[in-house]
């Protein structure tokens, strides 16, 4: 199988990797880079547990090939906290009990932090629409919506 040399910036750090053509981005992140916060919850790109940001845009990393990320900036859940300061969505999820088992949480955090970057004051419907590609089996979403509203307000007042 063909090998490819790729270079990415992941959570601010430059990394090179030699990868098979077929390697999925999620496995590059989890297994090559050992950043296991990004999870795999399905194989049909429905659940969103694997969501990361590619150049700021949330993508389902189980549906992106590692080679497609060549030259890109990748942000994973491990990259949300900056200088010991949690991202507002991280704070919001804790404050509003927006997580239980924690498995969908990294994907939810990456989707909602991207939402707030493009829309500082989303309506409830806009939040629900944004996370509709991220499944959660524990929380019933109500507290996730509250968490994002909390984060939005926190970010606006920062």
């Amino acid at each position: 199988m063909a090998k490819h040399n790729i270079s990415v910036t992941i959570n601010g750090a430059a990394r090179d990797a030699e990868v098979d053509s077929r390697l999925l981005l999620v496995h590059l992140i989890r297994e090559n880079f050992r950043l296991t916060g990004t999870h795999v919850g399905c194989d049909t790109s429905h659940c969103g547990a694997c969501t990361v940001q590619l150049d700021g845009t949330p993508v389902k990393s189980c549906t992106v090939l590692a080679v497609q990320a060549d030259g890109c900036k990748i942000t994973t859940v491990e990259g949300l906290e900056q200088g010991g300061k949690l991202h507002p969505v991280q704070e919001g999820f804790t404050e509003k009990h927006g997580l239980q088992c924690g498995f969908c949480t990294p994907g939810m955090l990456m989707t909602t932090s991207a939402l707030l970057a493009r829309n500082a004051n989303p309506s409830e419907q806009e939040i629900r629409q944004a996370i509709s590609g991220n499944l959660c089996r524990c929380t019933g979403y109500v507290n996730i919506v509250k968490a994002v509203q909390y984060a939005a307000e926190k970010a606006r007042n920062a």
Partner: protein
Amino acid sequence: MSETDMTPRTDAKICGMGHSMKRKEDPRFIRGKGNYVDDIQLPGMLYMDIVRSPHAHARIKKIDTSKALKIPGVLAVIDGPTLAKYNLHWMPTISADTQMVLPIDEVMYQAQEVCAVIATERYIAADGVDAVEVEYEPLPVMVDPHKSLAPGAPVLRKDKKDKKDNLAFHWEAGNKADAERALAACDVVVREQVYLPRIHVASMETCGCVADFNSAEGKLTLYMTTQAPHAVRTVLALVAGHVGLSEERIRVVSPDIGGGFGGKVPVYPGYVVAVAASVVIGKPVKWIEDRMENLQADSFARDYHMKVELGAKKDGTMTALKISTVADHGYANASANPSKFPAGLFSICTGSYDLKHAFCEVDAAYTHKPPGGVAYRCSFRVTEAVHAIERATDALAQKLGMDPAELRMKNFIRPEQFPYKSILGWEYDSGDYPRALKKAMDIIDYDALRKEQAEKRKRGELMGIGVCSFTEIVGAGPSKHFDILGLKMFDSAEIRVHPTGKAIARFGTKSQGQGHETTYAQIVAEELGIPAAHVQVEEGDTDTAPYGLGTYASRSTPTSGAACALAARKIRDKARDIAAHLLEVSPKDLEWEPGKFYVKGAPQMAKTIQECAFAAYTNHPQGMEAGLEATHYYDPPNLTFPFGSYICVVDIDRGTGEVKVRRFVAVDDCGNIINPMIVEGQIHGGLTQGIGPALFEEISYDEEGNISGGSFLDYYVPTALETPKWETDKTITPSPHHPFGAKGVGESATVGAPPAIHNAVVDALAHLGVTHFDIPITPEKVWQELKAKGIAE
């Protein structure tokens, strides 16, 4: 106790019961630092992937592994004959039935494990699976449990000597003749066919393990997605002791678990094969299912065909109930049920009502489908029981022309009847059903909704109101009656207080998102006054935690939570003696307030729990054992009976048949509450796993046994768009027998929500003569009904 008594006894610093403490689990999860099974990476670890049958029933003529073994990195293919050499090709189910680990010559359901490829990398293992060539001879398939139970049906379980039919078991409760006589004497009888289809828990994390056999020490460490690590260790020792895996050489570790809901109670063949592979090859082996394997092969829930007959007097007094059920258990009975209760706690089916005559029976059938019968976020078969009685109650209201809330109020077990002995043998511990329903009706303004509905009907708009007043039965259970594979269903807690007054507490249960690290710490805080922040909670490691049966059936708070309180009270008793020694008074002269002992009448003479802890290691009384720790194995005297009333409002689109849940009010009573924030979160999640089966989720099979609903493409888990903004409230009726009056809450909402939604949809169309829907109530089913009535737009 009323809701106003919810004021916590401890201050925010101690953070005992009643505080909405932020979760101790969250800091790692929001940083992506959880440790789930697939995150475990061991040196030299190999990967396993599984070849599965495309047929629901077939003879295996040949398994050709030659091409697979030529792939660089593929090390081995393990099949049934390989395991048979070690007599590991069969295993017991948790219901003491048997199932294949890997087949020798016959597959019995689609997606059954046929053989496993072991390789150096995940992708290469998958290549190996593709390269294995299996030759099958398809055989006739039995998918219908009714046909399976019919006389003369071909026998499926030919492995069982002398088995002449496909009956997995027959179980019944109550007096059949009496119930039938009573039904015959009723003024009104409704007969309702209630089918709860096969569904799947679909926890966001699938199942998997890392089996790490250390051949030098002869010790197996099994990291595993399990809700019951201790029971798994014992079962492994019982089935694999003959190949050297005796119990002291097995360590089962259940790390962070990404949701369980019952699906991670059973032992699946993949775990066993991974263990065998690690033992044979001498290296760690990781096996992680993909989502399709998870949905297609792991234990399902429900699949109960219930014929419900409910009888009443003309005035609506309900008197008699009879339920006959055909249960589809698939190829093997792999239910997660206590041994003496093959149909679980189904005999809670008289529900919240004072019925004097009742009978229920379950005939369980073998079919060519995956084995199972686990719960889906519910105590053993309680969802089925509640759905049956709550649908029948609405059907009765419709037939009598009575309001469904009024009919329920009329028939509720009255508060003064508790403890209440049900006709089917349960002793309900406590309850106030009218209060919960009244509260739900007040919150949603029930009368106004009925007026609105009447006006909308005049305009041709479809709006329905659904009520469900459920009674749960959880916290299994008293050892006199409850065991799984002989293991009694007590549970445990061990607390050690360190010299500086901090503590570690370990339990026989295992959280899968319920927040035990927080709530158990709050129980310790409540009982000992040690701040919850200073209590480290650990579960899931069989080398360190005390033995217990695990977390499912809403049993953690009723069992391990109780054990925690009682272990803490033992510690408090010892601390009292230490305080008396330090203060040079008699222990009888001391009073306790959270966190300290003080001398009666002289409150300035006091010793904190931290001072007592320090003295336990530095200055303990002569003759007293040093240290400050206790263990308790709690054997509950009875089950607990949480309850609630839910009211749901739906609007139906006449163009598409889509059901939209406009409002949903849930009033729950789970007794005394440890952490209100976590309880509310549990209810939100349970409600969402209630709307799923009511409107979307189903795994069905065609005549050839081909699964539909075997991936997230067509198994529809509710998203944030379909899920309504849940409105929750509570009443508090403590359990009289639980050490701190709690009842358990994790599953109430999953039990109560589906009938409320189901009833609401039927109610929306009741004026058109509609009396029945099967769940899930998809837009297509509704639209067909609208079309039949000539009102589809």
